């Protein structure tokens, strides 16, 4: 066990934890965060995605000790129900969900890619999402929402 200090959604949390524990388990079990979810535990689907210093990272395979002092943002850290972030607003406007379990992967991966390259082409956006899964297949609405968010960026 080790005492770690984590910077999550603007707050600092001190946690006693096995440093090999995947970040996802700390976020969901210790901090009761609901955004990142266990989909596969293999970094294949994206449901556990968080932003670390603005980059999309799959928290199910990242040991919590590797996070160090970096700022972690989860889906609920992006905006709030009262004041959703622009990409969350875009997804709400497009009705871009069914079960909603995959949304951390879809939204945070798209946000990271577009924040890095606001003028990304459709092909570049597709490339960024080529390893993100949604099994309700809300693909059409999600791509519309991502384009809507992008239109507000540029």
């Amino acid at each position: 066990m080790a005492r770690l200090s984590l910077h999550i959604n603007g707050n600092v949390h001190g946690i006693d934890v096995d440093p090999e524990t995947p970040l996802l388990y700390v976020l969901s079990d210790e901090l009761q965060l609901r955004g990142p979810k266990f989909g596969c535990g293999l970094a294949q689907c994206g449901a556990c995605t968080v932003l670390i210093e603005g980059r999309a990272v799959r928290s199910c395979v990242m040991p919590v000790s590797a996070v160090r002092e970096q700022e972690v943002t989860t889906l609920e850290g992006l905006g709030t129900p009262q004041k959703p972030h622009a990409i969350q607003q875009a997804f709400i406007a497009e009705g871009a969900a069914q079960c909603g379990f995959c949304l951390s992967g879809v939204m945070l991966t798209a946000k990271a890619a577009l924040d890095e390259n606001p003028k990304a082409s459709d092909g570049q956006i597709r490339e960024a999402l080529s390893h993100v899964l949604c099994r309700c297949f809300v693909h059409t609405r999600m791509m519309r929402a991502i384009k809507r968010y992008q239109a507000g960026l540029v």
Partner: protein
Amino acid sequence: MKTQFSRRDFLRSSGALVVCFSAASAVRPFAMAQGPFDTHRSHIDPERLDSWLRVGSDGAVTAYTGKCDFGQGMLTAQTQLVAEELCLPLYKVKLIQCDTSVTPDQGTTSGSQSTPTNFNSESLAQAAATAREALVGIATQRLGVPADQLVVEDGVVSAKDGRRINYGELVGGRNFEMPVSATAKRRSPGEWKVLGQPVPSIDSVALMTGTFEFVHNVCLPGMVHGRIVRPPQRGASVASVNESSVRHTPGFIKVVVRKNFVGVVAEKQWQAAQAAKQLKVEWNPGPRLPEQSSIYEYLRKQPSREAMLVDSKDVDDKLKSAARVLQATYLHPYQAHGSIGSSCAVADVQAHSATVWSATQSVYPTRQGVSDLTGLPVESVRVIFVRGSGCYGLNAADTVSYDAALLSQAVGRPVRVQLTRKDEFISENYGAACVIDQQAGIDASGSIEVWNCETWAASLGGRPGYDRPGNVITGMLAGFDPESVIPRAAVEPTGELRNGSNAVPSYVAGCVSGKCGGTGSIRSERVLMHAVNSPFFTGPLRSPLRLQNTFAHECFLDEICADVKADPVAYRLNHLSEPRLLEVVRTAAKAATWDARPSPKRDSPRTGVARGRGIACVAYEGDNGYAALVAEVDVDQSTGRIQARRFVVAHDCGPISNPEGLRNQIEGGILQGTSRALGEEITWDNHNVTSTDWNSYKTLPLGIELPAIECVLLDQPAAQATGAGETAITLIAAAIGNAIYDATGARIRQVPFTPERVKAALTVRG
């Protein structure tokens, strides 16, 4: 204190002029997910109004439903329904879903039955209509004004003289103490203000902001974590379990063994995961699995439970005398539900009671299963539905609920069980592998005069229901037998046509006992189904058997069209008789600007990329929704890759409750169907399934080039409401298969249409 309504009060209210002004747009923007709530009196008995809803002192309504939402939109649509019947804005209705302590037993949320069950003239809809009439009845007494001079708006009853009384004042906080009336007048679609509107999903904001509570987020005081150790081979049994191999691992609590069920409990999830990995179990090997390459021949040879659905008795003679006879065999693999989230459940089993938080589609049957597994009386078990990730049928939600109950009982503490991705893939009840033989006789004019269909569907286990916990893997491992096929010879069909699995093609008359319940005109007909024992668990996967059968029927119909050089749309119209099915075919063809001509396309290139179009149609389950769909695809003839370019669907599900939700379901169904048609297939080796992750089971990711999807919704306000979640997906494999043929002249009769199969078909095309 109770408020009693006499039968006379109730009847007096009938025929009241009820004018609703509630608007769908009045939805409160930040509605939250289902939270904790108290039980209430008089629940369970579906004949009683108080089982279905309650009016609070603030006039807001809490309604109770046995049909739950997995992302398919039933939360929003049912809330609209209650709001509509009670003339309330959406935000004044809170819907409690599927909890054995408070909601009526409506069986399983499945089979596109939620809308028919709760929106037609019974159950939730009739309860809400009963409540509205009762409330108006009390208002007439209180205000001394006849019902036809009262106006109801947003839960307030007003007289012309300006006096107003709201629902809270009329009955708030008290029970109705009356039966649900079978004659309470429903609001007609022409009067609808909330239903019929494109209402956004009520849980949308919570989902998008990561605040929605899934079953994966349920957290109880003192809760610990469990992981499961499944047998490494199908049918393997436990020889020995070496608890000392993990006893000293951090946080270790217990190894739980129950016959062949093995699990580990630890304080933290990571600790449980590590212990499950390290636990040394010796297994007695299971029997060798049938070779995947010959599975379809294997299925044909198994003892069979036969069902003859139609038999005009002249099929053999007609086939002998027909001008031409065509025949073909279609093959459909086992496919996974493949929920994006591996299943999870939380159970708190104490000495005399148990509570399970579960994403099951069937809270009451799951309660029975937990009772069977734990030995607790069924009345002492409570199962509370909390949404999981989309399930599309019987995924591992039921089995993980059993897992959690067994582990919790063993340690006497609340246990959360998270399946791994591999557990999920090897634990679930797959969509059935099917073999479908088709044979048709064509007369001299080129019309079909006889259709003969014989199907073999793999079957083992399934929904546990109220008496078969062994129908899912945990129950079986713990010692309960799964339902297996008991061979039985076919008998002559009697009663009405049963086409719930769409085994009977749309083009035959479907005559049973002299009554023709089919949707087509062909009078010489025989359909024989075989259920045969499966080496793997099977269970309903979105459009179970309906999809497999429709793939075979609609592709075979196209083969006939090609043989007689007929246009596939015109030829369908010539052989169909059901007006709603005819209408969707015409509408889809028109919306797609269908190029009327025989397939294959004459001037299509023989190399490089070729484009084609195909159509398919279905009367889902015979009469539970109608759809026709045109697919346009590109076939890369050098790689064998299929790229869907455009789908146009015409869809009729009766009166449309929520066009926004409906479109979402159709669009998702179309792409899910595309993924299943192009790549999804369970694979195995000699001893176990080898599709255990997203590399070995192919699904279309977000980053694909997306086809255009156009939906034409045919609203039928006068018709009964039908299901809508499974209709479009039923058509995709067939329409894509027909489009591939149109583009290339290559017919592919086996799903999925992988590049290898496409290339193989191209090499043997005419």
